């Protein structure tokens, strides 16, 4: 049986691309800005890999578009936003995630109730 940390890593790895697409769907962001938004929502990447290879793959596969723009008082940054293909992938991925989450909740949620009782 895997360790809790290992399971968390696996879960995050399977959904991190969706999370990145979700945060830049709200508003375009550069690399560190995405990390910060994820952390604000409780998803810290410390201990995990960085988001850069994943962003690179999303860019290579045409799921994100990039442009350069000045940041607040800093050097020009590379901003990411979802492309049309990225939005479609996000919608499909969120539907898959919810379906998987509901199925897992149907099994694990019951265990939680029994433990609580």
């Amino acid at each position, binding site marked *: 049986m895997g360790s809790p940390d290992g399971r968390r890593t696996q879960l995050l790895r399977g959904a991190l691309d969706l999370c990145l697409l979700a945060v830049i769907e709200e508003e375009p962001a550069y690399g560190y800005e995405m*990390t910060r938004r994820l952390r604000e929502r409780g998803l810290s990447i410390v201990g995990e890999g960085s988001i*850069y290879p994943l962003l690179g793959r999303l860019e290579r596969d045409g799921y994100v578009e990039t442009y350069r723009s000045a940041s607040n008082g800093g050097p020009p940054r590379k901003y990411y936003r979802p492309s049309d293909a990225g939005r479609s992938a996000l919608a499909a991925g969120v539907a898959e995630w919810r379906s998987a989450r509901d199925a897992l909740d149907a099994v694990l949620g019951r265990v939680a109730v029994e433990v609580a009782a």
Partner: protein
Amino acid sequence: MRPFVEECLREWKRLGVADPIANEMAADLEADIAEAEADGGSAEDVLGNEAFDAPAFARSWAESRGVIPERTPAAPGARPSRIRRWYPVAGIAACLLLALFGLLLLVAKPERHVSMTFAAPAGFVVPPRIERLRPGAPEPRFRFAKPEFRKGVFPGGAVIVPPDNPGPHLDVAGALFLVIGLGGAAGFGYVLFRRGRGTPATA
């Protein structure tokens, strides 16, 4: 630029990432780490556990972006193909041959001078006449071995004919071949040693 970013930049250049792309990635990374530090964090907040292995991170990012070809992961326990297994051995053999050739050039230098003896009656004064060594050979240059030859006195003696082959150049070439051959053989030997220990040698 931070050492981590500098190391990434070196790795990208080593991997053949085009300079504009490598510089852009380095600038983005540098700016992100600087912002994380300004927030009171560290490079680890930006890079996660990849903050401790710059070359691996740099390669991973470049591969993901598609700016270098992705490595095909080898199957667990897979061995190099038969041909690839023999590359280091063939390399060692070729380098040792080169070194041997260099050694031969150093030890067995060709004769640099050819002596020709002319006989003439004592006191008979004639200008020396030298003919070509063989038909079609380039015109050799001559110098007289004895001072009296230069005076035109020709009591009999030797004329030294430098050969066409420039001997000192062979010394340099021999030493060069020897060093390159031995160095190459050592390099291929190291690759063979790493393979034998099961550690993949990186290019």
